[in-house]
């Protein structure tokens, strides 16, 4: 029987690396439904989970898949699902339930071009706003965007750690291109992988309050069967978890849900800087398009252009402060993403009109080439 952590050097797809990352993080439940290009994650989990004491189930649709993931989370397991566009849309209502009930879970979206059935076998980055706002109401979530199979492995672990630390759904936003691309993946020894678990309650069970936050804004979370008699509801609730239909209760609950994320931005937001020190033009990108930008940055530097690159690893919450700081000293931004300008809007919002913001994007189905980025740089920021 293979161990949960497959220490060693592997050649695997991004989807497989995602599954291995989940197992290394301690995930023991996967509720899924087949959909291109995320199916391989389910397939890999169906093979691996029973061997490490976990459970895989293919549910009757994506709505059931995410509902089962939440159920398993309350049974005390680290749980996850993986899907793509249409399935992601179907999951939205229960993602709201996860946010509202502060249920830790990981949802992987291997993005394909949409809307609707779109281009099932061809990649895109068109769900970046949907992941932020897809369920109704105001809420906060965390979303990460890996750019290689190796990083999918690590970010899936990070996603589980963040979801446990903040009792919130966390999204791994990959895409068809890295999901299906085979690359070298190095899996470290198990004792070098940091895994976190949701804080457990202490003290008297009959006085326990399910949503009374600790110092970091997050409440401890018991599992079903541990004797806390918890009540978990998607209705607006008080700290005990009881439904309260009032403006005040709504205010308190929403403030708590937002504060635990927005009050810990330094802990959650991860970015990577490339040649930003003297940069005049800053590329902003994430996921597969980050690789386009790395090449474009190098080529631009080769031409003597002062181009730097800010790679967003955490997409949500957005790295607003980083963009704001750069906007004080650079000539402009170029956001590169496989959509028609989603994160581009966030960059514009954060730059607050101080410098021009441009987009290199398209409707989806293929990667963006470094040449397209260089052309935009030359067009938007002509050399004097």
């Amino acid at each position, binding site marked *: 029987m293979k161990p949960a952590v497959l220490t060693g050097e592997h050649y695997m797809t991004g989807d497989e690396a995602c599954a291995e990352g989940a197992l290394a993080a301690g995930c*023991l*439940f996967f*509720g899924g439904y087949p959909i291109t290009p995320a199916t391989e994650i389910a397939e890999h989990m*169906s*093979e691996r989970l*029973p*061997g490490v004491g976990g*459970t*895989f*189930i293919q*549910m*009757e*649709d994506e*709505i*059931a*898949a995410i*509902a*089962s*993931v*939440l*159920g*398993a*989370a*309350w*049974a*005390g*397991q680290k*749980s996850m699902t993986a899907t793509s566009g249409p399935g992601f849309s179907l999951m939205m*209502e*229960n993602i709201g*339930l996860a946010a509202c009930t502060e249920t830790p879970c990981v949802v992987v979206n291997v993005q394909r071009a949409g809307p609707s059935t779109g281009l099932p076998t061809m990649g895109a980055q068109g769900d970046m706003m949907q992941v932020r706002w897809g369920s109704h109401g105001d809420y906060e979530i965390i979303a990460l965007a890996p750019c290689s199979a190796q990083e999918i492995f690590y970010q899936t672990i990070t996603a589980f750690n963040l979801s446990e630390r903040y009792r919130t759904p966390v999204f791994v936003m990959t895409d068809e291109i890295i999901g299906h691309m085979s690359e070298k993946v190095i899996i470290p020894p198990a004792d070098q992988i940091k895994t976190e678990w949701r804080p457990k309650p202490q003290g008297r069970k009959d006085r326990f309050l399910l949503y009374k936050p600790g110092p970091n804004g997050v409440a401890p979370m018991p*599992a*079903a*069967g*541990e*004797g*806390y*008699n*918890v*009540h*978990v*509801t*998607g*209705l607006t609730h008080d700290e005990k978890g*009881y*439904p309260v239909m009032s403006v005040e209760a709504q205010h308190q609950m929403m403030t708590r849900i937002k504060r635990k994320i927005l009050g810990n931005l330094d802990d959650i937001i991860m970015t990577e800087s490339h040649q930003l020190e003297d940069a005049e033009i800053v590329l902003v990108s994430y996921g597969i398009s980050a690789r386009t930008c790395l090449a474009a940055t190098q080529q631009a530097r080769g031409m003597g252009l002062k181009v730097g690159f800010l790679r967003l690893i955490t997409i949500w919450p957005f790295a607003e402060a980083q963009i704001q700081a750069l906007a004080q000293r650079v000539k402009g931004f170029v956001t590169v993403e496989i959509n028609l300008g989603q994160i581009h809007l966030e960059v514009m919002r954060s730059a607050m009109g101080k410098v021009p913001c441009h987009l290199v994007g398209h409707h989806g189905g293929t990667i963006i080439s470094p040449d397209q980025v260089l052309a935009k740089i030359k067009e938007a920021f002509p050399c004097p």
Partner: protein
Amino acid sequence: MSLTALAKNGAVPDHPLEDLIRSDRIPHIWCPGCGIGTAFAACLSAMKASGIDLQTICMVSGIGCSGRAAGYVKLDSFHTTHGRAIPFATGLKLGNPKLNVVVFSGDGDLFAIGGNHFIHAARRNIDLTVICLNNLNYGMTGGQVAATTPFLARTTTTPAGNPEAPFNLPLLAWAAGATYVARWTILHTRELTECIQKAMKKSGFSFVEVLGPCPVNYGRRNKEKSLQTLKLYQEQTIIRNNADPTDLEVDFSKKVVLGEFVDKERSTCIENYDKTCRLM
């Protein structure tokens, strides 16, 4: 001494189900004459009588009047999204097979928006006890037509009468593979409590339909007072255990069949998973 007199003395005896009710959430939302409370009490009585460690019992509900049940039971309880109580409960059970998971919800939640989940849970024989309070309409939203509303019955969305045929719920459960199926009305509380207890102890997918009145929304529009509905439950029902599932339509112009219709053995989803998938 009467209860009122006891109350004046400050010596009200505990409700027999006090230990299973979140009394800090009373009064409940259910209307006078509603059948949900009776079915809910039968469910709690069955839990106590079953001898199952109460700490292992969880209740999962969807949305609607019956969906509020999870909010009143002093156990680990989950009030989920509309129609999704069963898949949530499936994850809960698979995540910790030691839990005894009871789904308590209404006919609209379980059989219209959640109908697909019901048949698949029965097919895979996941070890859940599903109790459906069938009041023939969507009560919480004011009395709209449901997948269980009788043909020609009036609701707010079928003002001229329901042009559609209702589901026969025990037939659906039987066809989908449920290992235990029973139906009672809220007038038959002893039988109902016994059957819920059996359903809970039974491994595999168990289904108990409970017919209960909704006088405020369904009864009012169909010229049926609460007491008349209860009379129908008394006079227009017949107990026939192991009846042919195709004979179980809810049509009070004929006799409505009550009883225990399925009680069979079949390996559960978890047993089969362990046998099939864990030995690779």
